[in-house]
């Protein structure tokens, strides 16, 4: 496909690959972002050029985009590419596209960058999973992102959207979109959309949510019930997953709905999902010293709510590791919006730079915990431990552990 590129894009693609190769050789990183930046500098339209002639599926939302992208790649079979290291802004996208000849590509996209990426790459399908609070201190507030999605949806006429009908912000943002497959999701998380995104009046939540201004939950073609059963237009789909949790059944439903929008067999796609057992270190069993641990990422209230929906299925020992670096958001206030009280009955240890904030948060709901200053004290033998960590804390746990 490179033969079709204009000379400038060819040079930019070469520079992207060269810099990333160099960065990998020098062990300066996974080599996904630096080269992409150089490539975009040489050809600002590189993303457009590398996407032309390929079938692009974009996945965005506050939570679940990495896992949904991985499920979608699994569902699509062998010849599919993606930004698999999680670099989800344009530099990461062009790096992944430049290094692959796959004609089908799944792009995980940062919410704020999505309108730009959609404009440049003209995806066949865009999955919009959810919108909730994440890193409030540095990202625009969630409603501003919804506003940008609104103009995106009115312009992307060639794109089919697969979108969350249970999320009022997304429904309002897509009011001008012509081609939407709605997915109805069981969720206990409404705290970011209690007031109507259109008129700010409080929403009413029943079987479907609605507002006095007329904004109402659309009828969904896809539905996940509270037990995790997935159906489309009333017909139940057999879906076996290796990934745990109701929220991953929701992610799987989005992946299957996207396959359906691409004209593929849903049953065939569904049969491939169980092959996915771990996503960038999450969910699978890892080794920490002599101990088995399972790493889970939760970086905002909705993410914690999803993980702790089924707190009873977690191991008795739970370590929660919280940082507040720039990438995490410097403001840990969100701990009070996350339902950590569901950890009652577990042996909870608080780790990370903001372990005292976490221990105080737990104490407010009467949960006694252990504050651990140095995780190295915990690596002795013992039963399986679940580790819940936010973004940079998760990265340091990835360095501290190895696959079992």
């Amino acid at each position, binding site marked *: 496909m490179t033969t079709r590129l204009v000379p400038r894009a060819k040079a930019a693609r070469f520079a992207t690959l060269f810099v990333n190769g160099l960065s990998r050789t020098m062990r300066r990183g996974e080599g996904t972002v630096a080269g992409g930046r150089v490539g975009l500098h040489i050809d600002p339209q590189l993303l457009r050029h590398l996407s032309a002639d390929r079938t692009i599926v974009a996945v965005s939302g506050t939570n679940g985009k990495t896992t949904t992208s991985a499920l979608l790649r699994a569902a699509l079979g062998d010849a599919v590419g993606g930004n698999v290291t999680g670099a989800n802004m344009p530099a990461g996208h062009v790096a992944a596209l430049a290094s692959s000849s796959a004609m089908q590509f799944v792009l995980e996209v940062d919410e704020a960058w999505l309108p730009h990426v959609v404009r440049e790459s003209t995806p066949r399908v865009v999955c919009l999973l959810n919108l909730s*609070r994440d890193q*409030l*201190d*540095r990202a625009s*507030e969630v*409603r501003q992102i919804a506003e940008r999605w609104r103009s995106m949806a009115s312009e992307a006429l060639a794109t089919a959207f697969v979108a969350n009908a249970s999320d009022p912000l997304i429904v309002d943002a897509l009011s001008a979109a012509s081609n939407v497959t709605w997915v109805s999701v069981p969720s206990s998380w409404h*705290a970011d959309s*209690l*007031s109507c995104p259109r008129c*700010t*009046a*409080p929403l009413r939540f029943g079987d479907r949510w609605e507002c006095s201004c007329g904004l109402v939950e659309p009828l969904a073609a896809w539905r996940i019930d509270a037990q995790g059963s997935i159906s489309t237009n009333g017909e139940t789909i057999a879906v076996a997953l290796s990934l745990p949790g109701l929220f991953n059944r929701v992610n799987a439903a989005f992946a299957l709905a996207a396959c359906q929008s691409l004209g593929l067999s849903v049953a065939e796609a569904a049969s491939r999902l169980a092959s996915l057992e771990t996503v960038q270190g999450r969910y699978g069993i890892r080794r920490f010293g002599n101990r088995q641990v399972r790493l889970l990422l939760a970086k905002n209230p909705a993410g914690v709510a999803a993980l702790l929906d089924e707190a009873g299925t977690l191991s008795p020992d739970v370590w929660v590791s919280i940082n507040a670096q720039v990438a995490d958001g*410097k*403001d840990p*206030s*969100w*701990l*009070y*919006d996350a339902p950590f009280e569901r950890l009652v009955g577990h042996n909870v240890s608080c780790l990370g730079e903001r372990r*005292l*904030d976490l*221990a*105080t*948060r737990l*104490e*407010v*709901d*009467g949960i006694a915990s252990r*504050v651990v200053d140095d995780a190295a004290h915990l690596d002795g033998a013992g039963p399986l431990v679940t580790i819940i960590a936010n973004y940079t804390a998760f990265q340091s746990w990835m360095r501290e552990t190895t696959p079992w």
Partner: protein
Amino acid sequence: MVTIALLYPELLGTYGDGGNARVLARRANARGIATSVVSVGTDDPLPDADIYLLGGGEDGPQRFACEALRRSDFTDRVAAGATVLAVCAGLQILGESFCVEGNDAYAGLGVVDAVTERGTPRAVGDLRVSVNGRPLIGFENHGGRTTLRSTAPLGVVEFGVGNDGAVDGFRHRNVFATYAHGPVLAINPWFADELLTTALGVALAPLHSVADELYAERCRVVAPR
């Protein structure tokens, strides 16, 4: 019995504001005082509460919450001595005017003579305020610059921006207002106790908890500039 009213959490709850109600309840319970936390919706009349909590919110919800309070008897309750904690958007609502959705001034409740205008850059980061010599530590995230005429500020800014870079919040009758948002009462146990003491009119026994360690750590980390 202490009744704590959490006002309009569906509108004013952007930054963990519900945590403040739970902290007050917990600290009262630990002293053997029964509590009741009431969430108040915009269609509900205000309950008879000992402490009213107003949290932070985005522009649209802030305007909506202001209108709900204007329809209620909130200002009468303040005049009658109700104890109130108002944070961020809640602080701005109690003034004469504030800006939402651009630079248009919007009429507040006029409980105090505070005027909030749009300020740049947005104030985002740690906030440290000296309240009668005691550090109050929190995190602020707002685009307002608040000017007080005769109302006393809550304290003097030692790090961060607060109202205007010099002082933060205000104190009027039994109303405490600050830009330190979210779980400010969790981080500052003394401030939670001051609210309880104001509302109950009785001194409280000391209470030790892990929050004391958090407060000490944050005082060290967020040092006066």
